[in-house]
């Protein structure tokens, strides 16, 4: 599904990613772990198409098509979703209105008509129920005055609504207490199926107690220095990152 080939990327001429190779197949959960400054968040931003970063070498291919020439919204239309570490606030725009716009823009890009209002409402209800989200919460302005946990749940709600091929969870566990973490992880697990894939980016192993990865990759200094199964996460938790450097 996603194929990252020798990816180099820099910001303000400073190289951050120095040759990443990674292949993700449908139905797989991959975790990228690494210390602060290793390039984890840069990797997710580059896949999503954040213009702050310049790709200097290599490629990111989704289903045989390079993503690099596409704008972020076009990548989203092709099925890339990223849950933000710091979701932005948009005052005056409700979550419902926002997600409706996102879904209909995506449908438009795929040559489909707007989702009829009643079906949209049905889908919103079903998703809110699945993720145990109070619908009152959805009529509040997007992320405005939300707690850390609420913001992350909102991201997972949007993910569920948009049904992406590949969901990137960028430090979704940061700022969450254990209860909030469980709720978010449960949500993600409910959405997992054989056709989609999840890339979890995290500093700590604890999220991986709840979202069990098939593969764990250690990122250091812009490169993947070790890959393994889920047991690698425990090893890292125990020993830290230093033994790998």
């Amino acid at each position, binding site marked *: 599904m996603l194929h990252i080939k020798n990816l180099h990327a820099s910001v303000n001429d400073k190289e951050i990613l120095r040759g990443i190779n990674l292949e993700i197949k449908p139905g797989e959960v991959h975790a990228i772990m690494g210390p602060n400054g290793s390039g984890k968040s840069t990797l997710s931003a580059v896949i999503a198409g954040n213009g702050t970063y310049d790709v200097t070498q290599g490629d990111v291919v989704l289903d045989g098509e390079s993503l690099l020439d596409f704008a972020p919204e076009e990548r989203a239309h092709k099925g890339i979703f990223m849950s933000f570490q710091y979701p932005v606030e*948009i005052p005056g725009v409700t979550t419902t209105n926002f997600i409706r716009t996102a879904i209909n823009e995506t449908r438009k890009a795929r040559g489909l008509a707007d989702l009829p209002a009643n079906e949209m409402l049905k889908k919103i209800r079903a998703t809110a129920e699945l993720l145990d989200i109070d619908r009152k919460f959805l009529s509040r302005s997007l992320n405005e005055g939300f707690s850390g946990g609420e913001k992350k749940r909102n991201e997972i709600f949007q993910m569920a609504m948009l049904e992406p091929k590949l969901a990137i969870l960028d430090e979704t566990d940061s700022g969450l207490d254990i209860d909030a973490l469980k709720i978010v992880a449960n949500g993600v697990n409910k959405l997992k199926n054989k056709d989609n894939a999840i890339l979890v980016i995290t500093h700590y192993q604890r999220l991986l107690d709840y979202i069990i990865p098939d593969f764990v990759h250690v990122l250091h200094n812009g490169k993947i220095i070790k890959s393994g199964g889920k047991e690698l996460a425990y090893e890292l938790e125990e020993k830290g990152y230093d033994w790998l450097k």
Partner: protein
Amino acid sequence: MTNKTKYTEEHLKKELETQEYAYGFYTDIASDTFPKGLNKDIVRAISKKKNEPKWMTEWRLEAFSIWQKMEEPNWANVNYKKPDFQDIAYYSAPKSVDPNKTLDDVDADLLAMYKKLGISIDEQKKMNNIAMDIVVDSVSVATTFKKTLAEKGIIFMPISEAIQEHPELVRKYMGTIVPKTDNFYAALNSAVFTDGSFCYIPKGVRCPMELSTYFRINEGGTGQFERTLLIADKGSYVSYLEGCTAPARDENQLHAAVVELIALDDAEIKYSTVQNWFPGDKDGNGGVFNFVTKRALCETNAKVSWTQVETGSAITWKYPSCILKGDNSVGEFYSIAVTNNYQQADTGTKMIHLGKNTRSTIISKGISAGKSQNSYRGLVRVNARAENARNFSQCDSLLMGNKCGAHTFPYIENKSKSAQIEHEATTSKIGEDQLFYCNQRGIDTEKAIALIVNGFSKEVLNKLPMEFAVEAQKLLEISLEGSVG
């Protein structure tokens, strides 16, 4: 390899510059236009053309001599070349307007123009339940729904007709809220006003539909000076809408209107404006000078709400105000002002608290783009007698790009110890992080800006009647986005 998706302020600037004014057409209708210039004879001629009674002619002439002694104000935060008042024609009328017309007789070219403006009178009549008066250049061309309204005793007609048919009401109220001496443009308007709307809602009557006036400047080299007088008698209610457009011209056209609202005891008036006069081109050529005096008087327990969406005009100078004379009266001002390219707006309100327990709310949203300057100027005055008066003001500015300006000039004058006055102000910028977030969810930058702007403006958009809110929302999008390549 650089990432082509990076969105910069340069892109934003280009997008905004490439937008075009959708209402900039000119309709070729034979018209009857006075020679340029202003003197007593022209004032008399306007009055004669309108077949006015002597008192009205005298009133105009008095206003004219007051105006002659006045100077154009220059305290507003706007810069422009002062108009040459002798280089303007003060009367222009489409020739084919017959004072005794019905809607079916309206000139086909005019009707085609309304169609372009997006108004189908028939549709408006049937579907929207809106009674509509349309003023093109200086005269009113069609008033719909007159009969339905008459059954309730509601008078809704061009002010020129009201002067003939209801002189007692016009004489009693005209100039009482905005006197001839009020300011330079109000004095000018009093001397030369050509048409506008008149509305009277009788005691205890709730007007069953929205009343609406659509203003259009069509002829070149002319000014538009309309005058609106709206009286809500005791315990009545009315919601009134006005919309404005003008052709794209490289000259500046002057629009100096006066609107007077009178809300008697327990009455309520909602007055909404969607102003989209031609704003000038992207280099700042042409555009309408919009110098407008709007004021309301609230008697005991009365309530007046001004809601305005201002996207047009090269220069806007406008402060819809409320005089809260009666005890427990309420004044509200909800405004969205959008400026782009070289537009300049100096707009806000005045809330004058005279009565006890009077309350006022001011919500002002300024959106600046391009090289425009957007100022909020508001006065809250509480007199000594106005015990327990309360005011809440909120002024938010949204900046797009880094060449525009947002300014806030709040004035607070309080003489009452028991008054409560609150003022909040914020300034924000559409951030690249907000845009990227929207992009990531499949929403392109143009749509994202519209979404963010709508969210920012929502508190005010919500105050508009439903069918106008949709139009206003579209207008905001057109004003700010244009065609992105």
